């Protein structure tokens, strides 16, 4: 599988979020997927150190459903976003999974506030026919240890 196709997949994922197709985005994740935004730099453990988000597939689904709830005060109306994916590198191509590292700049606009996030991202992808599914996504925000306003947007 060429890096180009991996890139196209990451762009596709970003596009789903930026066009608010959250349910289609959720479907990219495998049933055993984890979605992780660590609290600490180089955090190894999600169970005995807190995380900004650490979801299994069930919790990630609740996150998407909450975003659609009419009384989701911090989420409705949904933020407008641009997920800018760059520096895509396939770092490991094993038999089952491909590890992909990339950078993410996310611009979020909501409630007359524009916020900018930068992150190092790691995907572990599994081949699924012509495309991929996400088995693990880790998003290391550059300011994860900083004083952050509430995060209701999806990375």
């Amino acid at each position, binding site marked *: 599988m060429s890096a180009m196709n991996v890139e196209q997949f990451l762009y596709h994922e970003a596009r789903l979020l930026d066009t608010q197709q959250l349910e289609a985005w959720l479907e990219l994740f495998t049933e055993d997927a984890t979605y992780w*935004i660590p*609290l*600490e730099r180089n*955090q190894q453990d999600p*169970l*005995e*150190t*807190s*995380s*900004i*988000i*650490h979801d*299994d597939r*069930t*919790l990630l689904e*609740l*996150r998407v*459903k*909450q975003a659609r*709830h*009419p*009384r*989701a*005060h*911090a*989420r409705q109306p949904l933020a407008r976003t641009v997920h800018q994916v760059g520096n895509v590198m396939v770092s490991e191509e094993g038999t089952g999974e491909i590890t992909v590292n990339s950078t993410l700049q996310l611009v979020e606009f909501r*409630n007359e506030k524009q916020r900018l996030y930068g992150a190092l991202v790691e995907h572990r992808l599994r081949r699924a026919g012509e495309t991929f599914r996400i088995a693990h996504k880790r998003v290391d925000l550059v300011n994860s*240890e*900083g*004083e*952050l*306003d*509430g*995060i*209701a947007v999806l990375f």
Partner: protein
Amino acid sequence: MAANEQLAMLVQADRVHRSVYADPAIFELEMERVFGRAWLVLGHESQARRPGDYFTTRMGREPVVVVRKDNGEIAVLVNRCAHRGATVCAEGRGNAERFVCPYHGWSYDRAGMLQAVPFAGGYEKDKLPKGLKSVPRVSVYRGFIFASLSPHGEDLEAFLGPARASFDDFVDRAPGGELEVAGGVFKHAYDGNWKLMLENHLDGAHPAWVHASSVAVARGAPEPGRPGEEHYYDIAVRQMRQNGAPDAVWDAIGMWTTPYGHGYMGDYHDDSRLVAGLGNPLFEDYRRRLVAAAGEKEAERILRVTLWNTIIYPNCSFMSQFRQLRIIHPVAVDRSVVHTYSFRMKDAPARMFRDTVAFANVVNGTGSWVLTDDLEVYERIQRGLSSGAVDWVYLGRGHGRDVDEPDGTRRGATGTSEIFVRAQLAAWLRYMSAK
């Protein structure tokens, strides 16, 4: 502004003037008279155990270093070089023999005394400052570190009063009484006044509305597993569902306040897995260790205490049963920062800490389903109160029906009484008006 008679007009029996939340001049006065006078929670002894261990924090807006001195006592030093004013200690924690100013190399020992000055010949020796400004009053209650920027005032035990019981609950639950800060520190911010958080944490009438969306999705989630067949998502789903407890539960939980504006609420959980841990296979192991350390009778007493949030006015909120503690740092009249700490019981089964972390993520995490809706509402309150079109905030729930208890607390007529806001504002007015 600022004449005491004018301040007194702002806080009335069942209402408060919006300027208490929105006027920058009042905020400046609060930093001097509330945060400059009251005992503030700074942290826990486990953050500075050995001589030289230190951590930085803030008292109101004052940057301070909390450090263990060579004689074993805790010192709280204003993090500002006595020379030209730079912070002498970088933000964070560590262990230091000396605090050395990055500007001209003035160095201070662990007690804040000036030890060495480069180009010393250039100064008149008897005019050199003695050291960093030391915060005048420091005290520890059951491992929790407090300090006051004022040299005068009541001692810590009198300040805490009946709220000591909440700290006791926090510590007593740990077999052997050993707690340590662990698992990372959440730091979140919001565009709203610091008082909004302290008022919200005892408000049992808000979850059904503020948290409606997370309650709804959790109710639609797969059922949590039985003991021994648990899922990672169980703690999150259980806690979010519990916020949807019926009105009658909230009315019945109990709400107590103290003369210094502290307050605590009874527990609203009927979910034995979450708090009592009765359905948790680890719990029996934990209970055995607690009995071994405290004795059967005392262990039973400890586990019968069912408190939920406690507010220590004006800067702290904690949950003794789930070992979460939040410290609020006011930044501006409409900007606040909150640091959230989790605690590990050192002699409890190690895996119990995973529940604490999972709970922290769902309730206190910066990306939480729950906290984010609270923050959104704080910001909406701030926007509303910034409008001059309406002057008063109404605090009438349960007013006139408060009950004085023999232990010195005052109890709300129901668990959802707004007694806690009235008590906080009464304390606020006393700090603000005192000479």
